[in-house]
């Protein structure tokens, strides 16, 4: 699993690649928490390169969503692959966070 951040105009884009499972979710949680705690509460999670995600990933993003909103921001999910989108939907996460088909649209969702 690889993770990196890129500051864009409207949000910090955090791109994750690989699998998010119970083995790797802790690293995702720490990375998002560090970025949000460093004054970047508006986050786009680019999941286009995530080929597998379990419930451990759901917990990681639920924690990041709560932290970002506590800091006055939000977490937008971008470009999930079909399997990842399915788990987001079946667990009801699409009712509490916004999912966009592309990173550009997810960033634009924060406005200017």
């Amino acid at each position, binding site marked *: 699993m690889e993770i990196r951040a890129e500051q864009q105009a409207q949000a910090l884009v955090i791109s994750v690649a690989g699998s998010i499972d*119970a083995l790797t979710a802790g690293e995702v949680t720490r990375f998002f928490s560090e970025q949000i705690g460093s004054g970047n509460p508006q986050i786009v999670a680019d999941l286009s390169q995530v080929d597998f995600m379990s419930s451990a990933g759901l917990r990681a993003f639920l924690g990041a969503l709560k932290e970002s909103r506590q800091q006055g921001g939000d977490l937008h999910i971008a470009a999930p692959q079909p399997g990842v989108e399915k788990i987001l939907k079946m667990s009801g996460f699409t009712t509490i966070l916004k999912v966009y088909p592309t990173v550009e649209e997810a960033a634009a969702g924060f406005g200017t």
Partner: protein
Amino acid sequence: MTWELRVIQEFQITRSAELQSLPAFRDFIESVLKGFPNVEEQVRYDLKLAVDEACTNVILHGYAGMNPGSIILTLQISAQAVRMMITDFGHAFEPNETPMPDVGAGLDGREMGGFGLFIIYQTMDEVDYETTGSCNRLILTKCLEADRTGEALEKPVSSENFEEDLTC
């Protein structure tokens, strides 16, 4: 109650009960089932997801307070269904007594845990759990698209046969 399956082929992998083993279980499912054209990509994904959740529960809870033992994953494949049996030697649990998360809750009411078993029930057509004094077995069955009615699953197998079926 477990339903009999007309098994065509069976495959098995054993790994230690630690989180580092999770990719091996998923890769095993992918590599075996890729050779079966009737098992579509989305079905393979569901199977990998369910096994990942099941093995994670065993690793984090089944072997809690114990030295990590092993997990045996057995794949049985028929023309109409795939069955996965996950055998461990840790603490037993009762899936029917495990509370399900409220997936309709708002952000404030969201619990951080409980999704693993929920996802297993959502992705599998049949979930059974059996335990003896020495080992536990979670049995997950996924019907293939050609047979969503359950015709692949025939008569029930008596649970009395369970102990002699197990190789604990």
